[in-house]
């Protein structure tokens, strides 16, 4: 079970949060083409490694958090506000 350090509420269990998807994606501008919306809505990489994610603290402050989590080890590298420019750590190349 993840334990997430909410910047507003402190360290809380995953059960208080709802996952809201890939935070590295930006909704296309209103004048973008249909294909771009399709890509943004449906296509995901499903990477093994660091991942930027949205988590909404529904059982607490109801604020949206941006989180850097490792999809394999579940390690959480950083938790921030939605507009924080969080980046995923550099990963060592596969041996």
């Amino acid at each position: 079970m993840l334990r997430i350090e909410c910047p507003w509420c402190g360290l809380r269990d995953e059960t208080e949060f709802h996952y809201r998807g890939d935070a590295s994606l930006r909704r296309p501008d209103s004048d973008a083409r249909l294909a771009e919306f399709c890509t943004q809505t449906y296509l995901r990489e499903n990477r093994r490694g660091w991942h930027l994610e949205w988590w909404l603290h529904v059982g607490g402050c109801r604020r949206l958090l941006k989180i850097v989590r490792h999809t394999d080890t579940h390690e959480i590298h950083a938790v921030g506000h939605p507009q924080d420019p969080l980046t995923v750590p550099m990963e060592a190349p596969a041996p």
Partner: protein
Amino acid sequence: MSGPSRIGAGLWTRPDEPVEFRFDGQALRGLRGDTLASALLANGVQLVGRSFKYHRPRGIVTAGPEEPCALVDVLGPDGREPNRPATTLPLREGLITESQNRWPSLHFDVGSLGNLVARFLPAGFYYKTFMAPGWAWERLYEPAIRRAAGLGRLGLTATDHPSPAETVHDHADVLIVGAGAAGLAAAHGLGRTGARVMLLEQDAAPGGGTLLDRRWQAWQQGLSAALAGLHNVRCLPRSCVVGAYGHGVYAALETLSPEESIAFGGIRERLRIIRARRLLLTTGAIERLIAFPGNDVPGVMLAGAALAYLRRYGVAAGGHPAFFLNSDEAYQTVFEFAAAGIACAGVIDVRPESRAADHARSLGIRVQCGAMVERVEGARSVRRLRIASLAGGATALEADALLMSGGYSPASALASQLGAKHLWQESIAAFAPLLDPHIGRVAGAARGRCGLKVAALDGAAAAESIAAELGFAAGAVSPAWELPADAEQTPLTPLWEVRGRGKAFVDLQNDVTTADVRLAHREGYEHVEHMKRYTTHGMATDQGRIGGLVGSAVLAQARGLPVSEVGLAKIRPYVQPLPFAALAGPETGQHFKPRRRLPLHDWHEAAGASFVSIGLWLRPLVYARETGWDAVLREARAVRRSVGITDVSSLGKIDVQGPDAARFLDYIYANNFATLPVGRARYGIMLREDGMMLDDGTTSRLGAEHFLITTTTANSSVVLEHMEFQLQAVCPHHDVLLSDVSDQWAQFAIAGPRSREVVASVASGLDLSNAAFPFMAASAALLAGVAGRVFRISFSGELAFELAVPAAHALRLWTALLAAGQAFGIAPYGLDALNTLRIEKGHLTGAELNGNTTADDLGMERMLKSKGDFVGRMLAQRPGLRSPERLQLVGVRPIDRSQRLRNGAQLIVPEAPSRSLGYITSSTPSVELEGWVGLALLAGGRERMGKHLIATSPIHGETTTVAILSPHMIDPENSRVRA
């Protein structure tokens, strides 16, 4: 002495406290402190069950939760509980148990005839053989195979106990798993630094391996006493950590002793959810079996288990046992048995020579080095062993038990769950886990450090490292314990398998043989995980712990690789079987989920309402206890003819305020809200980003920067979360605040041609005329003396108002409205009548807003605004979603007015009866029209209006010819709401 095989005093048993119990109907006697297994062995019971697949006779193999064979049904007042390992089941007075998977009796089992054809039943046999015809698997083969195979039978009747288990949350700096030499030393070291320590032991008392060596008794007792004096160290026996979930969260199952259970009001188990900063695994090692023909005959037991039965319970697992082993460590049992005066039939040591063998010989024990047990003879118990010398030549040995040991493997289940690396260690011929130090450490036999002294020192060292990492200052100097020295040992010789005639098992619980593993390899299942799935090796309650590595080794041999390259199958939670009751804890029955009651719940109940659960809400379904449509139609008719009142407080209500509120709603809703004047309401639809309908409802503009949204009851939390996400992730620069005010406001709908008169009499000073307060008007008002709101909106299709007041004033307004409506025969109406009214009118609920429908499907394409962006705008325009062949909303009525409709009935044409064109989503008898009416989603529905189709419901055996018509079956001009 409570049983002929009880030859002395045990550490855990009380010789003066006999306990009566039953096994397969036989009355037996054990001692307080026994497990069922030790009590059965004390009574000379060797045959305790039949195996999973071949129904072979099986006995007790281990002394712990890794037991593969001795699983029993426990019969109690709450029913029959299957698959309890006899090796962990505490004996209690009056315990009634039965063996499993045998018929008619354990000693004569018809199913064991399968054993005669066993060579025709290799792994994968069922899947290969019972292939065709396809229907036969489900109806014929599987039920028959399931009856023949399997473990216990579940026969639980409802228990009167409100919660047979409880859930407890614990926090600690360090969680230590296993209270053997390493765990005790570590707990003591960490405890003295002031760290909060939890030390969990799966057995009934701490000690682990130190209990099996009398030289360690003083140290173990001294340390346990010292730990009891440390207030920051909690030692919990009978507590097995069953799962590791990352981020320092662990689950442990604590089984209460019979005495504790009585003290805690009958609770049997406690699920502990533990949050710890660091983990220390001192779980010790698990003895391995050796795969040789007949290694499953009752009386074949792990040597370490036999030692545990002798030391803990004073029970001898055999009167004349032989040993088959490959390490000096295993000789400890030989020596203890000799010390207890049990005549040893002989020791078969695969190694050419060893120190321990020499010592055994000096005690007068017959040892045959460089030899292997080729076969065990005996049907229901061990009679004779066939022994092959490595140098050539075979002999036979008479014995009544065979105590085997293939070496010890670190107990690495939890480490495996935490993604530990597994490193091959030649010295123990096993994998040892290595944990990320941020998670914790592994110490003692759990990482392959053999010997109690080595383990104790390793535990103390790990404790020191963890204390330093967590910033705890070194504690007071440890009292100088005298640690007994570990004996010098001759290294073990890896021994996995003895090949010969007959079945040699690597997994006793699933009846997986070495031949099955080789078959898996021949058929291409080379990876250890594939082999596991092909053969079921390592599955079920024991997770194949005593034979897991043996299976890997047999596979490695077949592949021509070293075991270190084949590896172990990943071990997942739970480490041992967890009763569902322990997982459920007190969250059973009404406590399974919260129940939300309306502010007027008590009034509805007193008025005779039947309730229905909508999400978490309890809503009045109809104000009658009787079933049937009469009461529903009576309520609905009151609305159509005069006036009715219903409680809609469970609707979601979201207060939206701020300078950018209108702009934000224009982005959330598919239709326009910026143009909505203050004091007016508008029906709105919102889409998901993929273009499907998310929800609908009415939104009122209470001020220039103030809106109130209503959502459907079922979707209220989904919509709120959707809006919060969009606001914070996509529109962070919008100056808007969202507040969920669902619980703050009670809201009632007053509907019917006389509703204006009723509302007027409670809304003082509000002109409700069409000119001053037209359809879709919204206003603040004083209602029965309470500051509230009035909305002229209608779900029923009649002239209607919705009145809202703060929830605490609900009863005051409700009773005022009932009094005002008395002259018009006002009737409260429930959800069924509400549904009848909205179906006639063609309004939507969750049945139509089912996540697969678009605005176009539901006839609301024209509401989508053409200018400006909104959620779902782009993807709603996908050509496929605008296909005229999509399921579209229509109304349906039976041609024969006496026939009824069914929700879920499929719509077909007679020429193609097996092709569904759509289905009925909602249906009701009508109050205004004759017979039944319904709504349906129909392929190309709008094109089919006026046509006839067949509605068929095969499960009801009903077929009805229906006319397809507009979903707005009454008042399509919408004149009544404007009356």
